[in-house]
């Protein structure tokens, strides 16, 4: 069994347990172990682009260093953690000005060589396990389910630093859902931002951002949405409460539907942790009883 160092991050330990548990269970079925770091701290949730703001780079770099006790490849699931960890590594060893780099290194407890490679779980599924192998483990095909794969901003941009997938038309999640038998609906707002943390200071603006995305998804004919980011999930699920139009669109983490398809027990999918109840749709499709 191949094992990877795994960094869950703060939100996956509390509000988004389902994103985390479903991934661990799915990985087990696929013969991969996600080995959680022995100690880790919050990555900071948002990358600071300010050149001299080295204090905000220390937390993510410590996690990257810690990962090396297990492996040089660190897997994350949360889009924000992925963005921050990957960009900190880039800042430190590819882009950083020598003066700031040295100052940052002076703050670290131990030397770090920049060698930890940050990977998203989707990259493990596609490149290390392979979507064909994933397909061979499918117990319940998602056949007939029209899924909109929503990526948001953190997974994709800035593409020069992240280099994950095409920043305007990403397909990595769509390909996964095609392998699981679902119909991956195409819509133009795949990589549009959900309103992010502006939710905290200007919630009405975030609601409007989410509404524009949902409108695009509904018009494309999707029945549900999958995402990789706890904040996207919250914004486009819970914010439906405040929208004039009733979309009634269930919003999943991609790992929930992956787990369902691979035969993970229903109670581990945590289907109650949603604002829009997704059970009705899954029952209709014969995916749960």
């Amino acid at each position, binding site marked *: 069994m191949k094992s990877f160092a795994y960094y869950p991050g*703060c939100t996956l330990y509390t509000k*988004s347990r389902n994103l985390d548990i479903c991934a661990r269970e799915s990985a087990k079925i696929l013969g991969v172990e996600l080995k959680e770091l022995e100690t880790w701290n919050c990555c900071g*949730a948002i990358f600071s*682009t300010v050149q001299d703001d080295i204090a905000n780079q220390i937390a993510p770099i410590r996690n990257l260093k810690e990962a090396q006790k297990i492996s040089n490849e660190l897997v994350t699931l949360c889009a*924000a953690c992925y963005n921050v960890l990957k960009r900190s590594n880039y800042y430190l060893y590819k882009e950083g000005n020598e003066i700031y780099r040295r100052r940052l290194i002076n703050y670290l407890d131990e030397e770090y060589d920049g060698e930890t490679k940050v990977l998203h779980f989707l990259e493990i599924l596609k490149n290390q396990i392979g979507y064909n192998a994933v397909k061979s483990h499918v117990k319940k095909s998602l056949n007939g389910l029209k899924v909109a794969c929503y990526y948001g901003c953190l997974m994709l*941009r*800035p593409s020069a630093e992240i280099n994950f997938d095409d920043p305007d038309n990403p397909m990595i999640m769509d390909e996964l859902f095609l392998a699981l038998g679902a119909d991956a609906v195409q819509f133009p707002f795949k990589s549009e931002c959900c309103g992010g*943390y502006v939710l*905290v200071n200007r919630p009405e603006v975030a609601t409007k951002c989410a509404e524009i995305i949902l409108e695009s998804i509904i018009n494309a004919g999707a029945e549900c949405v999958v995402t990789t980011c706890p904040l996207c*999930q919250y914004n486009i699920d819970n914010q439906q409460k405040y929208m004039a139009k009733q979309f009634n669109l269930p919003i999943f983490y991609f790992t929930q539907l992956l787990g369902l398809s691979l035969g993970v027990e229903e109670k581990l999918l945590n289907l109650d942790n949603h604002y829009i109840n997704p059970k009705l749709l899954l029952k209709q499709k014969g995916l749960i009883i």
Partner: protein
Amino acid sequence: MNEEIKLKEEIEELSRQRLLDCYQCGECSAGCPTAFAMDIVPSHSIRLLQLGKFNEVLNADNIWLCVACHVCGERCPRGVDYGKIADALRTLILRNKITHLTLEKIDKQFILEAPQQAFIAAFRKFTT
């Protein structure tokens, strides 16, 4: 005048962007997901900064509406990332100990419901 040159240099140093690179095509404002709510849109902000009208931009609402999604920088034909400029402008204000967000302003129920990722990010971007 010296003050102005100093401020321009500071913004460019913090953000690693060159203000004069922008030729005002407006791609950033067209792609920005929160532009609909802004008083001054990203391309307009950059123009004001080029002209040395720093206070107009520092007092504008748009720097608190930027979600750091970097659509502006991704689509800019001149490689200017307004998200990074907005981050620098916020930093200039916050380093003067003027905070934008306080805990009391946030609804209690909302604090219980929303993912902590949102709060950590907002407090990092909006508080001193």
